[in-house]
């Protein structure tokens, strides 16, 4: 650890491994290394809280156990991301998306997570779609809203809750302007 504090000499092109230009590199450099270390782990408070939530009330968790769990989670993220990223690479896609993560989890043996996560992701996308449509509609006026909601419902074809809207949409596609039913 080099002590350059209060040094106005030209240490600008420092030998710091990080390549940062600090005149007072001493403590700051060490601090930066610690910060980088923290970046690769999820916060211990969050991790600890999740652990605590599924244990009985009288259970205690050692600090080391929480730290080990932090490391395990980061390793888990890297492991799964690596698999997902390989898939994208093979398929010549640049962006790792939610489906890739679900697929990777399933491939790596985390089947139990895969299904709940797919539902989670699907729901998230639905809500995203609705929110996007809403903000469009808000800028364009109220009338557009019904039409726009019908469109987003049609695209989320697997949701049963949108069935009435889908029927409405299908009638439009047939070009029937009058609400007539075929008996």
């Amino acid at each position, binding site marked *: 650890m080099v002590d350059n504090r209060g040094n106005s000499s030209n240490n600008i092109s420092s030998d710091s491994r990080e390549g940062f230009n600090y005149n007072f590199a001493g403590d700051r450099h060490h601090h930066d290394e610690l910060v980088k270390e923290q970046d690769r782990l999820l916060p211990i408070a969050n991790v600890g809280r999740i652990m605590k939530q599924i244990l009985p009330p009288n259970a205690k968790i050692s600090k080391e*156990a929480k730290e080990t769990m932090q490391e395990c989670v980061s390793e888990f993220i890297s492991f799964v991301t690596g698999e997902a990223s390989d898939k994208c690479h093979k398929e010549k896609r640049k962006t790792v998306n939610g489906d890739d993560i679900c697929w990777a989890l399933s491939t790596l043996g985390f089947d139990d997570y895969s299904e709940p996560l797919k539902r989670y992701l699907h729901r998230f996308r639905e809500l995203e779609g609705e929110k996007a449509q809403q903000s469009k509609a808000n800028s364009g006026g109220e009338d557009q809203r019904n039409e726009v909601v019908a469109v987003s419902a049609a695209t989320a074809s697997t949701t049963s809750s949108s069935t009435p809207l889908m029927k409405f949409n299908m009638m439009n596609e047939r070009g029937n302007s009058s609400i007539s039913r075929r008996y």
Partner: protein
Amino acid sequence: MRQAGKYSGFMMCGGISGRTGPHSLPLARIKKIMKKSGEDVKMISGEAPIVFSKACELFIEELTRRSWATTLQGKRRILHKDDVASAVMATDIFDFLVSMVSETASPSEDGTLPEEEETAGSS
């Protein structure tokens, strides 16, 4: 993070995990860890860290549950690092963690932990 507020309504629906409140793990940090996993990982969609925040929760829950089983076997109430190591060894899908926990494991893994705070009452 800006997004956290936007999605807190989504999480508060309670329909998915039954939990209220925003994501329990910081999305930006998850994204950083994802990026560090390899050279190939350049672009990550916005939804990927969100899926991971849920996946990590499930992972922590499972590993914790299994670790606690070891704790109980030792008639203890404090979950120790070695309990986590045991759970990893005993579970196939946690094979990717084996080298990591054996690096950090203490020499005595046969239940006689020197730093154990509660004795099992075996004398």
